[in-house]
């Protein structure tokens, strides 16, 4: 019954009028930006990150989580209505959801997405409440070598699950790790890679990096598509609710999706994107008539959307208990926590139980709000969707610029923003994904510190990483993961999965 008592603590922390207010604002803003065509979840969260910094840690994290759920929900709306996936996670929703929209079932698709997400969100919250303390107590046993191995495993899995070339993803992780080391070395006090610039002494600021790589690069990329290629609203609305048959087909899919999502979300490197792909594949396999897929099968919306949300929820578990961000969104969350002066990890649960449980409770509240605000407001979101991009993008750039500037009031950070935008554009042209870089950037200093401590402990003997059982298991899992990719059969499955 510990869980209940803990959840009660959480709800009393999260359910203050102020926090509910921030949760509501977060959900609204997230949906508002997420629904705009051509802005995916990551850019939305990156852009809105600065506005949460002025709040106290719990409120700011609650608002940020609200922004995340809202952005995801907004992204699904865009996918269903205009067939424009903001990011990888909603590609799947595009396939079936947009076909439904073309048949006049947009309302049903949106409602199923919202209800499935809400259900998944409830289950996800219970998962976090149940698994969180368990993992956190395991994490209490962790020592430097174990943390180092954990981070290696996390980065390797993130690379395996990224799209595109594995080698290039590894390269990007390494570049991220190096960028994370810029600034003053904590244990020797020597500055590295600062080029005599005082603005770099404390390291590269998180905001210009992520807002440049995700926000600005997204704008530039969208500008490269000619106007005519940008999709227009083709959906027709007849009724908002799914009919009886649709509902009957949707709920088992939502159940399966929730299960898949909750489990995959916990994995390092997993999270919402992987979960929605996996759920779609499963739905196609279990369907009595797979030929309906691709022509507006409602299971193909209900399953992945639920999986998406459950995964989004449970991917907080490794972050909050182990301090390991499993995907770029969690890296953003981790960055926000560190700016607030909280070191994510097992200590959060013991030192700041109100923070952990408050966030867990706010996840549920956030999901409830999404259903409440989104079903009636769909009309407004639809209007926003038809906003032409030529009016939107100068506003997006303005938000990015003000966000970076107002957080530091230094023009140097703006120059960094421009530098990382250019960097992001170059790597985009070279077919490299920026997501692994951000994970590396966040983990860089932590990895170095844990490696250094481990080697001091062992007097320079690297076998410490296989002598300690926890570390050995984690490294074995890492080797297994690498072996699986090199193994040709699995490799082709991975490629197939991404092609679908």
């Amino acid at each position, binding site marked *: 019954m510990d869980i209940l008592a803990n959840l009660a603590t959480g709800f009393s922390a999260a359910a203050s009028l102020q926090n509910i207010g921030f949760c509501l604002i977060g959900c609204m803003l997230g949906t508002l930006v997420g629904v705009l065509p051509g802005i995916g979840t990551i850019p939305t969260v990156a852009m809105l990150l600065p506005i949460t910094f002025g709040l106290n840690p719990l409120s700011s994290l609650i608002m940020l989580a609200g922004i995340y759920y809202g952005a995801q929900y907004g992204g699904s709306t865009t996918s269903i209505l205009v067939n424009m996936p903001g990011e990888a996670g909603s590609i799947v929703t595009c396939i079936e959801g947009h076909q439904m929209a073309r048949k006049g079932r947009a309302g049903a698709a949106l409602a199923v997405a919202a209800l499935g997400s809400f259900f998944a969100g409830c289950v996800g919250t219970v998962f976090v409440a149940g698994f969180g303390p368990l993992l956190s107590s395991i994490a209490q046993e962790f020592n430097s070598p174990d943390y180092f191995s954990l981070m290696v495993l996390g980065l390797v899995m993130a690379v395996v699950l990224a799209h595109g070339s594995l080698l290039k993803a590894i*390269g990007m992780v390494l570049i991220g790790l190096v960028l994370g080391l810029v600034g003053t070395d904590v244990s020797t006090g020597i500055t*590295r890679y600062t080029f005599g610039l005082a603005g770099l002494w404390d390291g590269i600021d998180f905001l210009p990096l992520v807002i440049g790589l995700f926000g600005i690069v997204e704008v530039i990329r969208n500008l490269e598509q000619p106007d005519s290629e940008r999709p227009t609203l083709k959906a027709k609305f007849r009724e908002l609710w799914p009919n009886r048959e649709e509902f009957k087909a949707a709920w088992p899919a939502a159940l399966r999706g929730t299960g898949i999502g909750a489990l995959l979300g916990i994995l390092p490197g997993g999270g919402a994107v992987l979960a929605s792909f996996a759920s779609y594949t499963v739905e196609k396999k279990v369907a009595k008539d797979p030929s309906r897929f691709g022509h507006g099968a409602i299971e193909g919306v209900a399953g992945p959307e639920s999986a998406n949300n459950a995964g989004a929820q449970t991917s907080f578990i490794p972050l909050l208990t182990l301090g390991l961000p499993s995907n770029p969104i969690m890296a953003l969350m981790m960055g926000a926590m560190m700016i607030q002066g909280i070191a994510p990890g097992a200590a959060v649960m013991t030192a700041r139980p109100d923070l952990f449980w408050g966030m867990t409770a706010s996840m549920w509240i956030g999901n409830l709000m999404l259903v409440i605000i989104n079903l009636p407001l769909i009309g407004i979101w639809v209007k926003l969707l038809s906003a032409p991009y030529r009016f939107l993008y100068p*506003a997006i750039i303005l938000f990015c610029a003000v966000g970076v500037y*107002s957080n530091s009031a230094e023009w140097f950070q703006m120059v960094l923003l421009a530098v990382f935008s250019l960097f992001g554009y170059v790597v985009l*042209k070279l077919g490299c994904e920026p997501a692994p870089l951000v994970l590396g950037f966040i983990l860089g200093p932590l990895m170095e510190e844990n490696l250094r401590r481990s080697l001091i402990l062992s007097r320079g003997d*690297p076998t410490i990483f296989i002598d300690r059982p926890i570390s050995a298991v984690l490294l074995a899992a890492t080797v297994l993961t690498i072996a699986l990719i090199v193994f040709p059969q699995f490799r082709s499955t991975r490629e197939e999965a991404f092609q679908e």
Partner: protein
Amino acid sequence: MFRVRSPQDFGAGVFFMLFGVAGLFFARNLAFGSTEHMGPGYFPVLLNVGIVTIGAVVALRALAVDGPPIEGVAWRGPIFVLASILLFAFLIERAGLVVTTAVLTLVAAYARREAKLLENLLLAAGLALMAVVLFVFALRQPMPIWWWG
């Protein structure tokens, strides 16, 4: 002689190698230390050697395996967008939020070849108004509205 069969990968490989070599070069004065006592240069050198190695493998592979070309780069977009950000950085403390927002909007708008002046002047005025109301009045960000503060 060799032929580049996958320009995009080749470019990425060269990019990684350049980054790694620069990383090693600028770490040359950092003490490497020993395994037991890692100096400030230990981890950076390790990582950059990794980056150079990956870069070399990616580039060499691009000579053997066919792959996608590097998509055409339309410099107009990035140049105008980056210019608008840098102008914001330069102007915000000198000219205040209204002028800065208007300049950012106008410059950013010309990232599209089809930009229309009148439309964008209206947009610039609208965004400047919104910026002042939202950022200064509502969110109370410390930014001057005009050049006199």
